[in-house]
């Protein structure tokens, strides 16, 4: 006979079983009720960090152009379409593009005197003719250029039928179009509808700002991650060793580290970068040296307090060696703080890297880097606000993401750390 008490227990509902199996993800999701603002901070900043890492690995996702090539006009403001040579036609015109002119003989075309339009339209016509030639057709695109005084004259010539079409720059034509409903713009002479677009504008040498930003993410994150890893690998073992052994070694090392910590890091990095010369590896070395004391101080402090712990005492009494105590009994307890410092440290390293390249030290001047872009942009501050605005926002967002991630994790895992 079954035990009556046991049978009365309700069976586990299906969703409860699911919850037990779903595990980590669900538990993380439920954390928001417990940790509130800090949980949201971690989630949002993790998303931002992931975004920037993806961009760093695949800059092509955002960058439509080569960051080092001149791809458009100079100083194009964000969002504006670049100036293009366009065809002006009557609405009832039988043609829509230059290709339609093939085989019609020399078509009268109005061009404003002295404007680059005449040369551009002629070379485009030649190109189409060559293409037709290669395709085996005898047709040619022929133009009879009619020079007129002003752009208004050109529109008038098209309207009256004096010429079949006109060519002029879109920037000049568009404002005039409203007053002249008898003509239409049939698109750029090259036939592509829409043409190139530069959402964040172009810089002083016609490079796309957005493409440079995307490639700059790669440079910034490389510097941030590598420099922080480098100082972690030096600072953490030194901190463990000094904290655990104590004595003269500890005192001497701490004095050195404290002096380094008190010294303006950027100035030390400037000196190192200046001596080493411009290259990304040298920037990483210069920055890594600065942040060794940060890891050292935290790890040493935590080692000092954990080495009093009972588990360390026990390990020592069963004859564990110094190295194995440090490795297996103290180091694991230090990991959470090191991870947090690491995140904040990446942010700092990115800031310092940007500062170094802003000062013209460290990176070769052709690198697509945010700091370099800001320094260049300063020269054109009077006429191009977008050159200094967007790289700065990029630096700020990356730094914000890593700092918030570190801070949020700190609040969640180790609220005491903040005071150190």
């Amino acid at each position, binding site marked *: 006979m079954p035990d009556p008490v046991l049978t009365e227990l309700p069976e586990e509902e299906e969703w409860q079983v699911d919850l037990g199996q779903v595990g980590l993800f669900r538990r993380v999701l439920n954390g928001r009720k417990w940790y509130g603002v800090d949980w949201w901070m971690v989630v949002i900043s993790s998303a931002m960090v992931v975004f920037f890492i993806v961009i760093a690995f695949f800059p092509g996702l955002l960058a439509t152009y080569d960051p080092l090539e001149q791809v458009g006009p100079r100083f194009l403001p964000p969002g504006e379409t670049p100036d293009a040579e366009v065809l002006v036609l009557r609405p009832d015109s039988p043609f829509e593009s230059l290709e339609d002119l093939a085989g019609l003989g020399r078509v009268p075309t109005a061009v404003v005197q002295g404007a680059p339009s005449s040369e551009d339209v002629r070379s485009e016509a030649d190109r189409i003719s060559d293409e037709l030639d290669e395709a085996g057709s005898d047709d040619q695109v022929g133009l009879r250029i009619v020079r007129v005084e002003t752009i208004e004259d050109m529109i008038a010539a098209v309207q009256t039928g004096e010429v079949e079409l006109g060519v002029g720059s879109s920037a000049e034509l568009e404002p005039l179009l409203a007053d002249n409903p008898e003509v239409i713009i049939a698109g750029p002479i090259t036939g592509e509808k829409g043409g190139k677009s530069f959402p964040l504008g172009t810089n002083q040498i016609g490079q796309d700002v957005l493409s440079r930003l995307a490639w700059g993410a790669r440079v910034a994150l490389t510097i941030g991650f590598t420099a922080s890893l480098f100082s972690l690998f030096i600072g953490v073992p030194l901190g463990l060793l000094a904290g655990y052994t104590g004595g003269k070694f500890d005192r001497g090392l701490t004095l050195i580290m404290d002096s380094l910590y008190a010294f303006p890091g950027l100035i*030390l990095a400037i000196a190192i970068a200046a001596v080493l010369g411009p290259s990304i590896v040298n920037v990483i070395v210069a920055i890594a040296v600065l942040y060794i004391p940060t890891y050292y101080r935290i790890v040493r402090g935590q080692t000092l307090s954990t080495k009093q712990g009972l588990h360390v005492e026990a390990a020592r009494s069963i004859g564990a060696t110094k190295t194995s105590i440090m490795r297996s009994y103290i180091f694991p307890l230090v990991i959470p703080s090191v991870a947090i410092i690491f995140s904040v440290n990446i942010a700092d390293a990115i800031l310092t890297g*940007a500062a170094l390249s*802003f000062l013209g030290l460290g990176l070769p001047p052709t690198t697509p880097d945010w700091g370099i872009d800001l320094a260049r942009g300063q020269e054109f501050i009077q006429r191009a606000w977008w050159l200094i605005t967007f790289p700065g926002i990029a630096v700020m967002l990356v730094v914000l993401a890593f700092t918030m991630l570190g801070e949020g994790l700190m609040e969640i895992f180790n609220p005491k750390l903040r005071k150190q």
Partner: protein
Amino acid sequence: MHPLLLIFLIFGIPALIGLVYVYSRGSSGLRTYMTTRIALTIPMILILATVVFFVMRILPGDPIDSTLGPKGTAEIKERFAEQHGLNDPIFVQYGRFVGNVFTLDFGNSLIQSQRPIVDELGERLPATLEMIIPATLLALGLGIFLGTRAGIRRKSASDYGSRIFSVMIYAMPIFWLGLLFQLIFGVWLGWTPIAGRIDPQIPLERTTNLLIVDSIITLNWAALRSVLAHLILPTLTLGLVLSGVFLRLTRINVIETNQEEYVAAARARGISQGTITRRYALQNAMIPVITLIGLQVAILLAGAVLTETVFAWPGMGRYLIQRILSRDFTAVQSVIVFFALFVAVISLAVDILYSLLDPRVRY
């Protein structure tokens, strides 16, 4: 009179008088602490000088190559090395270098008429001081004010606002903030000049190179107005960036002291919130903030280098960058050592102040 000497008279003499006064009136514990602390400054300067020396000499870059550039022939290099004692054993060089640090004799600049570096620093240091002193005051005032408000009204709108401000300001590159100010106030609104210390067309006799002091001494009000207008943006940039750190620390400490039992006791006695904040919470919360000033010197100087570069401010930081770019390695080395001295002296001053305020640290 040498400008550096004048600067010392203006800032150093009052500090020394204060030091002697505190020492003569202090308890024996305080005296011991002060003696130890002053004695400890010497190894600190030594370590920093050593780090600078080794960074400049031992790292792969060669001072001879980096000064002469690619055009130096073997013969020129040899003569250069002889002239600057670079052929001596490294320890002899090191000893000479450290000796020079303590006598403030940095030698002559390698470029531009080879002036003594001490003279050049005498022109640049006042410019830097004139910018960082008001910036520090602004940072302290703003940081403590906002931090206290946020700490008292925890989880209120002003608390979250202050925290967002401090996080944003932390993430903002200081040079970008400077550029934005230039763009908004200088270019778009046209309110302030965007570069330099003074309108070059205004004549001003320079004695201390602290232009505010100079223009007041000579009663040159046009110059004073120009100097102040030029000072606004750099001070605002540096001050705002520094204020974020003070804000965070003040807030945390006010929150902590507010939870102390003596604050609860004061509240139970019916003392008003304003008095509690001023007399009980804030005074104790200030102690860690003052220690922080010492650590902030590093950030302050790094920020000054960047701010000076952005605003073409003829101070120490810009001098450093210019000399790095023109490969004047004696000047670079000297400026960095000078920064180290500056850090050491400020942290000494802050520690002594700290020991005066908080008797627990004296040992």
